[in-house]
């Protein structure tokens, strides 16, 4: 009932840029705001794992620290916000 009968999906030019996959969105978010920063360990440089980065972000945003890309975390990533990184590099 609630769906319009003849709803037609239109991909407007502006839309294409926005339809990135959730994982891609999460990766770029974690990197852009400093959660994926490298870690120094006995001279060996390694990227923070995504799960660890997600936990950091969830802690900063007051979300449950699941380390997973769950819905509340994804919703938070889509919220309008300040462009200054959360973790200073």
């Amino acid at each position, binding site marked *: 009932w609630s769906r319009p009968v003849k709803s037609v999906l239109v991909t407007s030019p502006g839309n294409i840029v926005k339809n990135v996959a959730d994982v891609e969105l999460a990766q770029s978010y974690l990197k852009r705001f400093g959660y994926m920063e490298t870690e120094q360990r006995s001279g060996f440089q390694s990227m923070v794992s995504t799960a660890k980065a997600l936990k950091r972000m969830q802690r900063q945003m007051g979300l449950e620290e699941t380390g997973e890309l769950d819905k509340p975390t994804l919703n938070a990533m889509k919220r309008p916000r300040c462009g200054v990184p959360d973790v*200073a590099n």
Partner: protein
Amino acid sequence: YKTFDGDLKWDHTDVTYRILNYSPDMDSKLIDDAFARAFKVWSDVTPLTFTRLFQGNADIMISFGKADHGDPYPFDGKDGLLAHAYPPGEGIQGDAHFDDDEHWTLGKGAVVKTYFGNAEGAVCQFPFTFEGKSYTSCTTEGRTDNLPWCATTADYDKDKKYGFCPSELLFTFDGNADGAPCVFPFTFLGDKYDSCTTEGRNDGYRWCATTNNFDTDKKYGFCPNRDTAVTGGNSEGDPCHFPFVFQGKEYHSCTSEGRTDGKLWCATTDNYDKDQKWGFCPDQGYSLFLVAAHEFGHALGLDHSNIREALMFPMYSYVEDFSLHEDDIEGIQFLYGRKTGPDPTPPQPNTPTTTPYPDESDATEEPEPTDPSVVTTPSTVDPTKDPCKMLKFDTITVIQGHLHFFKDGQFWKVSNKTDGGRTGPFSISQSWPALPAVIDSAFEDVQTTKIYFFSGRRFWVYTGSSVLGPHSIEKLGLPPSVQKVEGALYRGKSKVLLFSGENFWRFNLKTQMIDKGYPKYTEASFGGVPNDAHDVFQQKGNIYFCRDLFYWRLNSGRQVDHTGNVKYDLLKCP
């Protein structure tokens, strides 16, 4: 709270800022005010002061930009990133950038300041009714010149209060055409344009020529956004076109048809199927005040907080009655300490004073005639009127050395004593019964203590409680073209400068006539002040030109040495 590595902070407390450009979303005065209030959030709890510069390098340089706006951190179109700022330091450090792909408002939808009409620049009231029909945006209904207008009260049919909405047909901003409106069609690189265009620019800002040929005259300005301007899409800034056809069906308002995210959009031509021109409809937008207060926190040395209710939390959320969170206060006071100096003046007793003007309490300074016959019944003023909420005063002047602020039949006094406390409201009619409610300007002849009041084309002269007038201002030698005296500047030696529009005249108190050689252009004698100031007065050797809530102060060398906010600096609002 968090600070940046090394507790980066300014090594001085008198911080300067400069606004480099404006967003077409809001009137520049509203943007000025939003930024001033955003700085005040931090100056209220620290020793910091913020002074606005109009040229040169300031600590905090503020600008609007889109996508790649010149630093290594491009914005990302509508929504997402709203703004960013750099921690204190030299160069770009301390600067704040705002994403002009956002729809900047005060958080509750477009703020449309009106021009001309009879509403004195009030903002539109949506919805409003006109000839029984309700409007939720500006309209050209009822006009033949196609100028969009709106009512500034809910019912135009009853109140008849209106003003014109920003549009490129009324004015442009920046550019080199002094705000002249667009001329359509105009020629640019040989092509004809009958609407604003972004052609020739790579920053996405819409512009037009203010003559019919840009190629020869090179005159141009930027187009203000109409209240129905779209954001994002592929015709940013253009207004929605209603009706428009989409998939063969006609739409008379924004729709989310065709989208999965439910966002409202519209076409900017009459046929989306043919032209494919579209954009997102204006929404509540983002509060420039709230976002600016957050970014200025960065510019002062605060990093993001993980307290969700704190101003420095990285995600935007609109707050109706904003107040700074404890976490933010602790953070900024960790960097700059507490506010030193007097606490904000305690709230004035709001029981109205019952003594009419002149006020006996000044009697200790100089004897004043008080007429015992003056009735001392409680005044009929409205004590709930808060001068700190006013956007503009009818006139501001100095009488007996105290600043007076007149508005709609009432006035407030700010003592020139060191404590500078504010008293009032007083009733104009109780103190000067012959006067009307609206006073355009006033001055005191200090030698004779006569007070001249101007309203429209009339003036009155009070000596104590006796009054002469009203007389026509033509009696003073002002030409019939002068509709009102907006400013009166007592210069001593029986000379007074009377300001109206872009001119001023010198009035000789002895001869009671205008001196020869006048009028002169205000700009020519008082460089750097706005030519539409509506209050001019002198205090402690400085001359003040006021426009709305801002003032330009000229020192004895006639140099603008300070600009400030009437509310906070003169009226002593908390």
